[in-house]
């Protein structure tokens, strides 16, 4: 009895939060920010993009899920690069004191740099690539910004492998490669996946900045275009979409992470 009540509460309470946010939004647009579209107006302006999510009317006029899809593909590529580069670097940092002393300072300095700062550098780096330059620059930015949690968590994971496991590997005379594959890697997996989840969050965060500056079609590019077109309602649609997709990505990675935690 009280159990069902509890369940009802946990289901209903978030709605209260949403209602409060909507009210605040409505109040803001009616008072201090007259240019901010009201929730109702936002919905009116956005419904076409929501109800025909995969429509393609032009390069920068497409359904919201189609835009999301473009963005996800770009993120997936940049994220993959981040993992492929970040995981081995993390392993080296965790395994070798020397490697750690050499590269940790530079990592600590590069880590807090904002995506907005990396992007111009990315464009410059790939200037010779011509038409591809903006895409490559965006990938570079996503990869370099989202790599750090993977690098650092993997390193911590490797460093916190209990001596016991290493002793087992030594007592069984596992070769270096076997020790890596059969002991170090499985022992580090839970940490690696925590890193992967955090990295995915950042990769998705960066996408908007990247698309805004490169002008590629996607949620971020669409957002920027609608801002320039003074169509503020659709900015809010984009924001909500970005938030929602980010939330789902995090949840999915959380599930994967949990699977490895119990192992």
């Amino acid at each position, binding site marked *: 009895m009280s159990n069902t009540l509890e369940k009802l509460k946990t289901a209903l309470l978030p709605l209260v939060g949403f209602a409060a946010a909507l009210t605040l939004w409505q109040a803001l647009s009616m008072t201090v920010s007259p240019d901010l579209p009201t929730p109702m107006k936002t919905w009116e302006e956005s419904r076409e993009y929501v109800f025909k999510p995969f429509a393609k009317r032009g390069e920068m006029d497409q359904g919201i899920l189609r835009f999301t899809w473009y963005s996800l593909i770009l993120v997936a590529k940049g994220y993959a690069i981040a993992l492929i580069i970040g995981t081995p670097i993390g392993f080296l940092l965790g395994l070798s004191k020397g490697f750690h002393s050499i590269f940790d300072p530079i990592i600590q300095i590069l880590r807090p740099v904002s995506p907005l700062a990396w992007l111009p550098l990315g464009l410059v780096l790939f200037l010779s690539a011509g038409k591809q330059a903006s895409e490559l620059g965006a990938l570079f930015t996503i990869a370099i910004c989202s790599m750090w949690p993977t690098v650092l968590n993997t390193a911590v994971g490797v460093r916190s492998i209990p001596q016991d496991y290493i*002793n087992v590997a030594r007592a069984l005379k596992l070769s270096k490669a076997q020790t890596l594959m059969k002991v170090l890697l499985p022992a580090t997996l839970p940490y690696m996946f925590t890193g992967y989840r955090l990295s995915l969050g950042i990769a998705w965060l960066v996408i908007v900045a990247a698309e805004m500056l490169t002008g590629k079609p996607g949620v971020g590019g669409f957002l920027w275009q609608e801002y320039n077109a003074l169509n503020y309602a659709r900015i809010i649609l984009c924001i909500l979409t970005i938030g929602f997709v980010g939330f789902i990505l995090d949840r999915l990675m959380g599930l994967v992470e949990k699977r490895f935690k119990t192992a």
Partner: protein
Amino acid sequence: MPFLELKEVTKGFGANGSRTEVLRNINLQIEEGEFVAIVGYSGAGKTTLINMISGLASPDSGQVSLGGKPITGPAKDRGIVFQNYSLLPWLTVSENILLAVDQVFPDWPPEKKSHHVASHVAKVNLSHARDKRPAELSGGMRQRVSVARALAMDPQVLLLDEPLSALDALTRATLQDEISRIWQDNRKTVVLITNDPDEGIYLADRIIPLSAGPGATLGPSIPVDLHRPRDRKTLNQLTRFKEIRSQVIDYLLASAPKRTEVQKTLILPDIEPEDLSIPKPLMGGRKQPIRRGDIRRESVEI
């Protein structure tokens, strides 16, 4: 020539300045097929000693040799049961043992390997749990997996580092019987580290006390000339059992750091506790405030 031999072995930890010698002048000779128990205090250096036999650690001076050859590192001819089980938590019981079998018998066909694993799982009565992970097992079950893993390597020497010390008395007795049975089946050379003299006497051919550290060293080697199979119930009534037991315990007690009374003048802060608004019981129940110049007795370990 003895099968396993430690000659004048010394081992310490720490850099020059803060170095402490853990083991000093260790001499030990073990014949092939012998079951030797080493009993000592916690922290005396028992694990350090067995690590040097397994090859996981090397002595600072002196030699450790097996079959006449110096030990330079771990090898498959020595199976070790670690004090803290050391199973890999992401592998099941069978997989943990298979990892060892894969290493020692790489040329066997897969069916032979899995049969070998299954028979060792059965040997320690864990067939019902063969697909479980260590986290799903009790401490005693984990310990048995660890024993099975070492046995499956079919080593010439079995090194047991307090394999039963984490267990309750009943499980402990059962596993002692299991170890005794397994040893009588295949008569491997066994070095058993334990903190329980009774356990050593019940299982071993010879029992050697390790004195308290730092700078621990092995005491006299005491032969356990009690016929096998030994009966746990009547064993501790035998006069010979009592003799061995008291020899071991006397040696260990005599080696323990002595406590001496020393007189010292301590300069203590001149604070009057009654000035503080803390209620008396919180001050440790002491009635008299301690004043400058008080003389106190202190126990100091020398």
